[in-house]
């Protein structure tokens, strides 16, 4: 199968997958107890108001009718309106997503850098202190709850050392013209260096927290794969040719060890988007993760469904991209 056909097949297969996911979410939300109208109005509002609100939101219709109404709207590109705020869900996602994207990308860069450099170096210096340190680091960081780690970071760097801010995306008194919603880009576009510095300062603690936790997987994988590759014949041959150790490690061993790791990175990136939830809550980061938590609490059906579909689409797109890039890196991959 050619790469083009493969991509088309993957996209076509993704549609029923997302449909099934949506149907499941739709059903689960309506089976579990909890009524969005009552969550908003409480017991204070008169019964007529509650009934009217339910009618307005279409929640008085049979579930199957609600489902097909929703799918119909979705096909027209309409994710519906939040029951909590009455605003279009898409508008709310658009407002929140740049914050999550910014945090995720920043954390991802940290995770990958730490993972590749420490992992490969640990493999190269096998059984040394660096290697033992890397293994300990992976084990501890994999086990540590991200919110606890975040709180410790806040305490040490925010309270004790007073180096960095402990929450939010930007200081209250710093002005920034929002264009894309990704504050780093916006500050660069507008040449607002004061804002850029402030945004980076806000990004460091949540970014490091999430990045270091995720890097534990990479450190271990890079180390193990590099150890395996270093023992293979082509590496021995390279050494025999008298190549420098740096060249052997990075150009021969690491490059080959990275192919399976690259797939893992793609999956981790997709998981990161969802995994940012606890970090966002700990650092008051106004992203899609904390948005989803709030909406679940209020049983805001359209918002929860919309966010889940949005996440699902991102995961599908990323996994397709990863496969394509994998195919380009390693021509042995056949579809």
């Amino acid at each position, binding site marked *: 199968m050619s790469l083009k056909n493969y991509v088309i097949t993957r996209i076509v297969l993704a549609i029923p997958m997302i449909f099934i996911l949506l149907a499941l979410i739709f059903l689960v939300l309506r089976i579990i*107890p909890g009524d969005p109208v009552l969550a908003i109005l409480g017991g204070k*509002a008169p*019964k007529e108001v509650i009934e009217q609100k339910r009618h307005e939101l279409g929640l008085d219709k049979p579930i199957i009718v609600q489902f097909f109404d929703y799918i119909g709207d979705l096909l027209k590109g309409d994710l519906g309106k939040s029951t909590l*705020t009455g605003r279009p869900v898409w508008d709310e996602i658009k407002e929140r997503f740049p914050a999550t994207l910014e945090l995720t990308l920043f954390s991802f860069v940290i995770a990958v850098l730490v993972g590749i450099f420490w992992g490969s170096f640990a493999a190269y210096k096998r059984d040394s202190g660096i290697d033992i340190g890397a293994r300990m680091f992976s084990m501890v960081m994999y086990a540590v709850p991200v919110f606890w780690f975040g709180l410790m970071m806040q305490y040490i760097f925010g*309270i004790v050392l007073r180096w960095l801010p402990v929450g939010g*995306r930007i200081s209250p008194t710093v002005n920034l013209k929002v264009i894309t919603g990704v504050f780093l880009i916006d500050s660069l576009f507008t040449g607002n260096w004061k804002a850029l510095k402030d945004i980076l300062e806000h990004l460091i603690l949540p970014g490091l927290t999430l990045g270091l936790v995720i890097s534990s997987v990479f450190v271990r994988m890079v180390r193990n794969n590099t150890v395996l590759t270093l023992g293979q014949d082509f590496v021995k041959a390279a050494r025999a040719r008298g190549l420098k150790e740096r060249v052997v490690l990075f150009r021969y061993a690491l490059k080959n060890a990275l192919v399976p790791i690259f797939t893992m990175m793609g999956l981790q990136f997709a998981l990161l988007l969802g995994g940012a939830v606890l970090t966002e809550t700990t650092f008051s980061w106004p992203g899609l993760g904390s948005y989803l938590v709030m909406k679940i609490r209020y049983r805001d059906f359209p918002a929860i469904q919309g966010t889940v579909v949005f996440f699902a689409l991102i995961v599908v797109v990323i996994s397709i991209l990863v496969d394509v890039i994998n195919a380009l890196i390693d021509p042995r991959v056949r579809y």
Partner: protein
Amino acid sequence: MKRFVWLFLILAVTLSFAARDVIVVGTTDKIRTLDPANCYDYFSSNILQNVMVGLVDYEIGTSNLKPVLAKRWEVNETGTVYTFYLRKDAKFEDGTPIDAHVFKYSFDRVIRLNGDPAFLLSDIIEKTEVVDDYTFRVTLKYPFSAFVSVLGYTVAYPVNPKVYPVDSFYEGIPSASGPYRIKEWIRDVRIVLEENPNYFGEKPKTKRIVINFYESASTLRLALETGEVDVAYRHLDPRDIIDLEGREDIVVYKGNSPQIRYLVINVTQPPFDNANVRQALAYAVNRSVIVEDVFAGLAKPLYSMIPEGMWGHKSVFPERDLQKAKSLLKEVGYDENNPLVIDLWYTPTHYGTTEADVAQVLKEAFEETGVIKVNLKYAEWSTYVEYFLNGTMGLFLLGWYPDYLDPDDYVWPFLSESGAKSLGSFYANPEVEKLMIEARKLTDQEKRAEIYYKVQEILAQDVPYIPLWQGVATCAAKKQVKGILLEPTQIFRYYILYWEE
């Protein structure tokens, strides 16, 4: 040289007293909507109370109403027609005059759109009229003495017809009529208020207020400690408040709150359909442990559904008496060998992080009688509301935050037949119903208070609710921030805050 020293001293003193032009406030609350027709949550209302004005407002620091956009008003003999004479110098931030046409537009819009708080107006208003450009008339369906109090709430604030659409809710930035206007609003990140040049009243003491939103109480506390915010208002945990009280650079403010917390008893569900059981529970609760141990003294025990400090309040519920509780239960056949087994419900996040502790304290208090066994149960807020409306829960914790500051708002929603159903007690007593309707018609406060005393006494006998504690409003701020006033009305006025070194 001496002259320079003097000059320097004068400059230093001047600078030290100069007001800072920005104060940063941090909160864990969220803004839902800034359209008065749909706004029914505390923090959204609080923003509107600083960027808009209504016919009436409360005098700063009290719960007494004063005219604002209305210069004065008249009520007809039957108490059903209110005529408001409006001031002529009030404008929205774009210069649009606030006249009787604007009021008619706004009131009719609230009723037509039927948003969350609309029932506060639509339940009582028959019609609205423009008598002339600056005279506005409202005819009520029936006499209702607390009507002017309702007008103090944001639902009755006039909106700019050029900005707020006639047939749908508005999700943008409001057109200001109050001391501040909104300069910038990034949802859930921050909102920036700045002086409104078209406001007829006194200028705010600080030109700009930046409100920063935090996800958790712990981050808010850290933001205050690290100096990222100057004022932390809603919601710090009680233990954090106590910790902060020990710091030299921070001042903790405490004020009365009209928020009450109570146990609801579903009077139709066995064994709670027995008055002896309900009275026994009322004797067994331990308010002081809740107040001291759970809230570290940041709450007050409450012995009536009408909060302390409000006219008409009478402490009617008994002090703790375990022997009395035991004997009441014995009369209906419960003792150590045949204990009363009940479920006590709570909701874990809606009322903050302390709720599970409150439930545990109540369980221990009930079980101390030796004749009650309690199973603790919990459900998330959206499920909880469904359960109490359906009558699933027999005994559960709930809270009340008033819509208008009048005893009526503490008895009618709980004890009127429709109200009791919607709050899960399903209580009905024709005598109480008659008394409350009578009180609504009267304008004489003393006579109304007499009626409310009677209503509270019946409440303590029938026990469909057990009042537990009254909230204490708190706020922590840097010591340089002045003008913080935690008012009985719970209006937090940003325009009186200022910075002083």
